């Protein structure tokens, strides 16, 4: 487990297997591993969740703090997504200043959640123009066995869905003693789920294990949700050196709605 360098032999074997539509664990190229979601990682958080996708495990927690609005969005609460790739979760991660992966992950979560309109930020104003809620979502992997971004997106959605807006005392600070039952202002049924397609040779796969992910040559992550009954792509980012052709992009667009429905159904069981 400590060595993460993929041998050429493994890469070649995987390339041939993917081309034949096969994977080591018997899944189809676009099949997900078993998904499990549980809640209440920390009872100090306003909402929190733990997501397991195969052996990949991610936790996300929501904290809410009164703050001041940004000058360009005076009538809205603030969403701040951050997180870190803890050295606890993988021999790949190191402590110290964030590397590119640690910068990219929360940025992708932020864009998918923000653009989908899942959180009604306009309802998070405490005192117009002066005081709003800062919603912090922090994401941490506990065990990295591939496809962290997609697992993290499920953890964020689950944590948000379970979050309660805390009560404020007379001085306007959070009253941690009072149990709040007020839900976060979330749009009904809007769940921005991430799907990262990984490419090896001319094959595209979803939800790779760490070994598969290491062997792949490029990735493109799409955040998709349903808005007014329509499928909407909310975010997208391609990473790594390899290229995608027009036909490959079209193929992903055709596959996405179906994959979204599949995972969204699974997700609903846990919400």
């Amino acid at each position, binding site marked *: 487990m400590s060595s993460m360098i993929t041998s050429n032999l493994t890469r070649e074997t995987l390339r041939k297997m993917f081309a034949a539509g096969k994977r080591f664990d018997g899944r189809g190229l676009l099949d997900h591993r078993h998904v499990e979601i549980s809640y209440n990682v920390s009872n100090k958080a306003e909402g929190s969740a733990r997501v397991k996708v195969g052996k990949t495990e991610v936790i996300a927690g929501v904290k809410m703090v009164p703050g001041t609005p940004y000058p360009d969005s005076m009538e809205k609460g603030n969403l701040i997504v951050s997180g870190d790739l803890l050295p606890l979760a993988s021999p790949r991660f190191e402590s110290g200043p964030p590397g*590119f992966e640690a*910068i*990219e992950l929360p*940025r992708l979560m932020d*864009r998918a959640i*923000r*653009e*989908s*309109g899942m959180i009604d930020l306009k309802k998070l104003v405490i005192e117009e123009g002066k005081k709003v809620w800062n919603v912090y979502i922090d994401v941490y992997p506990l065990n990295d066995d591939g496809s962290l971004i997609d697992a993290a997106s499920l953890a964020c959605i689950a944590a948000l869905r379970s979050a309660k807006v805390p009560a404020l005392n007379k001085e306007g600070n959070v009253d941690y003693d009072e149990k709040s039952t007020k839900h976060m202002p979330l749009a009904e049924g809007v769940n921005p789920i991430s799907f990262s397609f990984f490419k090896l040779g001319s094959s595209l796969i979803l939800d790779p294990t760490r070994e598969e992910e290491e062997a792949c040559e490029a990735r*493109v992550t799409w955040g*998709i949700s349903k*808005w007014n009954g*329509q*499928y*909407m*792509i*909310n*975010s*997208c*980012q*391609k*990473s*790594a*050196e*390899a*290229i*995608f*052709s*027009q*036909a490959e*992009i*079209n193929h992903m*667009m*055709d596959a*996405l*709605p179906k994959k979204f429905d599949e995972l969204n159904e699974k997700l609903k069981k846990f919400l």
Partner: protein
Amino acid sequence: MVVKRSDGRKAHDLRPMKAKVGVVPNADGSAMFSFGNTVAIAAVYGPRQLHPQHMQDPTTGILRCQYDLLSFSVSDRKKPGPSRRSQEISKVTEWALLPVVDLKSFPNTVVDVQIYILQADAGTRTAGINAAALALAHAGIPMKDLVCSVALGKLDKDIVVDLDKDEEDFEGGEGPTDFAIAKVANGDEFTLLQLDGKIQPDKVKEVIKIVGEVSKQIYDVQKKALKEAVEEQ
């Protein structure tokens, strides 16, 4: 066309483009590229010895891009120094350009690409990539093709090409969508895909198709700039 564009452009019109190579005499290659009021300059240094040594790759040279906004290029002064945004853009820029450069003949070296935005009016990363591709070619780095980049968007339900800042901040209907794309000039190879907003999967397909058509205009501007530089010599 439901949404009217403030500068009177048609949906698939690019802003006027300008390109010039050799803008930084010290550099091994350099270029300026602009989309309307968005102006980017890029300079290339290398291939040169890479330090620290442990980063060296004995099988190939590596490409290292750095993108940033200058402090006075935007309305609210940007604090100098790399931000998370600029680090992300630097990395995706690197990935956008890598597929066309071949540094196999320069083991253990680095080619540094410095991209700065002088004036920002949306589409800065795409202008930066166009400038960087030109600067790499001007530096004589082995390349199989140029890279052309442009941001498309959706204003409510309409697909538009090359959004300016006002359009990026558009509110109403389905809201704004900003989709930055780069492709290899003469190939069916997409090297940058970056999007935020709300856009239907079928419209994504449409956007990809339109990019194939408009990128030819960008390529022509790039080619012309390179030819002019050769003729001057």
